[in-house]
């Protein structure tokens, strides 16, 4: 049998040559001869085209056979595509789960959050007060249902360890608004927001499983919640969570006369939710809401000095927040990776098409039309991309698990991420598009090759020029695309290291922190709370390994904060802007020493700053500079109450600290001692305890629990973490997207290097003969080396230049994600291209060495 396809091609070529020669000998012109031969071929061809199912099936079978014949090619192509498509499917899964998929509530697109606006500068998104909630509920016409909630912690005691559980107080409309009902028992009845009837709770599925062993009989029983006997009325299904899965218990929001009094009208502590009536647009609802809030100032003149407004925001937007942007950057990055993968595969196909030209010419001679050939080649591409897509989807399913496990829990809805129908559909579409993108150009080019040329062209595959220009353009774009990704990753990594170097303003090492919430039912007065802390701290200070201990209401990097308006003695407030509101911290004595926050001037609080002593305050440096820019604040007085001023004298200036995130600017902060409460009715508040240890702080947690239990055996502690862990968590979102982008950039670099290697190696093979001749004619080995490397490096340099320009153009998109680094950071814009050029050099070097070893005698002999 003749060897397929070389021998057959040679034989056919001879036949056509002979025929041509005879036709010419018989007197036909060149054109007539060619036409006569073409007629022969076309007559057969016309019977063989058409888009028939059996032809498609045959194409698919043929494509499979072709792939099996060339397993190396198939593996490289499938792997490249699977990585590219898999990365897209995985990141799309996250985008889908976090951004696209509707929230898991009935008609979630009709759910909105109502934010108030007190028309004061810097205060435009405030929660609602109880009174405002009732007005929204009863006076508006656009809402089917209105609810309000606030997240709070509850201490669970009785039957086992005392436990601090995150929960929420919710209006009785809350569950109905979300369209959720209990799995066991019921949710709240309308009257359970009234005094005496509100000692009921609904449990989350997870809490029910964990603490009550999923016992359905718990419904109807009474358990101690914050020390008060409380009846469990229901258990929610496992799928229900609101606002996120950390909330494990719900209690009714008590709407008594006190909560609804005018005094409480300004206590904006509750997030108001609403469900739009079917068919009502957000604009209509907004107009309706504006009409309702317009009456507030007239009805409650004491509370809305500057008037009041409210705006609606879709709940989905509220929950997802600003996660969208980094996710979109990542999605863009994987799309670029896929483009590079496509370019690589297209290049491989072009190279293979060149060596398949005779096969294709033969099929043409045997009657295949051009359309038929393109279809055949496209079938192969799409088949390859479909298989690649399937493998990619498998990779994605695995990668998504990995992503969820390693994703910071601060990414909203991350637990809802998974491979679903939409992800599968997306992957199928991407795979199809991929197959068309990388397959079309090579298919068109291959099918256009003139029949006689291809058949006549001798043993060498040849045609390097045709493949070469497209191939080189593809490699140039690969280099440019991967450089854009690499620079983006470089900028993010640079930002991240900058951020890690930021000093938080205190000593975060060996600092154990935890939350302690004394229940108001047991610690009914401020003095009782003070007694607890004195006892607890005295015991803890005696413990070996604990060097100092203190407490604060809103610990840095705990996510908590809080501001309060105050006024400065001797300054008049003429305009609303003159009202001052700054971050307020309540700290026990020794807090600054325990945290390692320097006292820049004056002193910090001591146990002598007691209730019956002159009231004192400490300000931070930023506050001192803002409010006393030309004088020392020490000795100045501030008051928090508007009617009878109670003066707090500034006795010290503390250093600035980072409170929420290392990247934030320093904010003014005001500290007052725990022993000198702001107003008379002050009771105990949840506090964070900080303990400086001499050994590993994590190992001190057990001692701390023991000491707490010694003072009050029903008192749980929660949110136990070292300070370093908290700071690490504040960086976790950024670390996550940086690591992912770096990963994708690395993948892009690898693919680009493979692309450069592939085309240089291919051209060396193509040019073996030419190189042999050059060497025979006296070219030095290093000339050959320079020629080959030069070819590869030309493409690299052109691609790099385009990539640098594109990155500079895209800089504005990046700048909001950066910290302490310019979006056109010179170090990155020089260093990263150098890295890429080094990798490209290595990729060229391997084929260049092979070119150097070309034996001129052997090449010439084979001719």
């Amino acid at each position: 049998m003749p060897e397929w396809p070389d021998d057959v091609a040679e034989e056919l070529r001879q036949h056509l040559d002979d025929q041509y020669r005879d036709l010419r000998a018989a007197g036909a012109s060149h054109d007539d001869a060619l036409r006569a031969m073409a007629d022969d071929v076309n007559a057969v061809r016309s019977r063989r085209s058409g888009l028939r199912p059996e032809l498609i099936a045959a194409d698919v079978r043929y494509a499979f056979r072709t792939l099996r014949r060339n397993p190396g090619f198939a593996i490289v192509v499938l792997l490249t595509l699977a990585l590219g498509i898999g990365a897209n499917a995985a990141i799309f899964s996250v985008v889908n789960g976090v951004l696209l998929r509707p929230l898991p509530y009935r008609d979630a697109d009709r759910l909105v959050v109502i934010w108030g606006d007190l028309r004061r500068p810097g205060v435009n998104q405030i929660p609602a007060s109880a009174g405002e909630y009732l007005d929204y509920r009863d006076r508006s016409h656009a809402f089917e249902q209105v609810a309000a909630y606030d997240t709070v912690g509850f201490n669970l005691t009785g039957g086992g360890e005392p436990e601090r559980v995150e929960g929420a107080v919710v209006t009785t409309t809350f569950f109905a608004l979300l369209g959720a009902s209990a799995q066991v028992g019921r949710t709240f009845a309308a009257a359970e927001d009234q005094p005496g009837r509100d000692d009921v709770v609904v449990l989350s599925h997870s809490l029910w499983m964990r603490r009550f062993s999923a016992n359905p009989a718990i419904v109807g029983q009474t358990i101690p919640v914050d020390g008060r006997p409380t009846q469990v009325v229901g258990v929610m299904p496992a799928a229900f969570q609101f606002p996120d899965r950390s909330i494990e218990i719900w209690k009714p929001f008590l709407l008594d006369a006190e909560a609804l009094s005018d005094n409480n009208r300004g206590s904006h502590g509750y997030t108001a939710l609403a469900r739009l009536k079917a068919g009502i647009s957000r604009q209509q609802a907004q107009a309706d809401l504006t009409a309702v809030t317009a009456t507030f100032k007239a009805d409650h003149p004491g509370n809305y000095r500057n008037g009041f407004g409210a705006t609606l925001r879709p709940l989905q937007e509220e929950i997802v927040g600003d996660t969208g942007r980094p996710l979109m950057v990542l999605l863009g990055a994987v799309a670029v990776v896929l483009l590079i993968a496509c370019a690589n595969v297209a290049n491989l196909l072009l190279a293979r098409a060149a060596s398949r030209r005779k096969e294709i010419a033969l099929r043409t001679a045997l009657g295949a039309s051009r359309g038929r050939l393109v279809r055949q080649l496209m079938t192969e591409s799409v088949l390859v991309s479909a298989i690649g897509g399937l493998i990619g989807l498998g990779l994605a399913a695995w990668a998504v698990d990995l992503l969820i496990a390693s994703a910071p829990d601060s990414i909203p809805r991350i637990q809802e991420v998974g491979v679903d129908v939409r992800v599968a559909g997306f992957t199928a579409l991407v795979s199809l598009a991929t197959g068309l993108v990388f397959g079309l150009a090579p298919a068109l080019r291959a099918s256009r090759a003139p029949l006689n040329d291809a058949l006549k062209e001798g043993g060498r595959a040849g045609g390097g020029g045709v493949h070469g220009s497209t191939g080189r353009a593809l490699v140039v774009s690969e280099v440019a695309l991967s450089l854009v990704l690499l620079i983006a990753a470089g900028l993010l990594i640079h930002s991240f290291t900058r951020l890690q170097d930021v000093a938080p303003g205190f000593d975060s090492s060996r600092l154990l922190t935890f939350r302690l919430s004394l229940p108001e039912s047991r610690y009914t007065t401020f003095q009782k709370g003070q007694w607890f802390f004195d006892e607890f701290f005295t015991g803890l200070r005696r413990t070996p390994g604990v060097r100092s201990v203190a407490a604060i209401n809103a610990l840095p990097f705990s996510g908590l904060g809080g501001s309060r308006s105050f006024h400065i003695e001797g300054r008049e407030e003429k305009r609303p802007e003159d009202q001052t509101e700054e971050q307020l911290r309540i700290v026990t004595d020794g807090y600054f020493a325990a945290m390692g926050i320097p006292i820049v001037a004056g002193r910090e609080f001591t146990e002598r700053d007691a209730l019956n002593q002159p009231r004192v305050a400490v300000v931070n440096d930023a506050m001192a500079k803002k409010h006393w820019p030309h004088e020392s604040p020490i000795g100045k007085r501030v008051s928090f109450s508007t009617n009878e001023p109670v003066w707090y004298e500034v006795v010290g200036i503390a250093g600035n600290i980072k409170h929420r995130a290392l990247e934030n600017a320093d904010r003014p902060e005001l500290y007052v001692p725990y022993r000198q409460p702001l107003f008379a009715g002050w009771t105990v508040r949840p506090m964070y305890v900080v303990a400086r240890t001499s050994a590993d702080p994590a190992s001190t947690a057990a001692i701390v629990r023991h000491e707490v239990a010694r003072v009050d055996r029903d008192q749980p502690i929660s949110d136990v973490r070292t300070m370093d862990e908290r700071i690490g968590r504040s960086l976790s979102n950024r670390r996550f997207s940086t690591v992912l982008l770096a990963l994708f950039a690395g993948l892009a670099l690898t693919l680009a290097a493979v692309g450069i290697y592939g085309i240089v190696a291919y051209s060396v093979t193509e040019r073996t003969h030419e190189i042999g001749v050059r060497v025979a004619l006296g070219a030095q080995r290093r000339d050959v080396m320079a020629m080959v490397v030069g070819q590869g490096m030309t493409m690299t340099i052109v691609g790099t230049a385009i990539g640098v320009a594109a990155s500079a153009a895209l800089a504005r998109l990046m700048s909001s994600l950066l910290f302490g680094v310019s979006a056109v950071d010179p170090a990155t814009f020089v260093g990263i291209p150098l890295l890429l050029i080094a990798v490209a050099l290595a990729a060229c070097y391997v084929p260049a060495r092979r070119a150097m070893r070309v034996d001129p005698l052997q090449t010439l002999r084979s001719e």
Partner: protein
Amino acid sequence: MQYIKNRMLDRELKKGSAELLILSLLEDQPRHGYDLSKLIEARSGGILKFRVASLYPLLYRLEKRGWILGRWIEKAGQRRRRYYRLTPVGANVLASQRHTWREFVLAISRVTGVEHA
């Protein structure tokens, strides 16, 4: 008319008479593909004509069955060509097919009333 003739011939060729033609032509001496196609056209007075698209697949089919054998042969001053020769198996097939064909033609002639020369 010409169209119908072509269609009939095509069918006949596919049915196997084409095989008989090839085998017959290879009985005396090995020949290459173009030679075969020229001979068929010349000896049939231009009525039988092989297209490239049918001839070579047919040759490869016969070779696969072991009836003929192709060899690359280089002759001085010429480029190498693939010559096909009849194998002993092919010779047996030829004898049997030729016999069948004669009987077939005879039978047709008797029925259609055309005198055998």
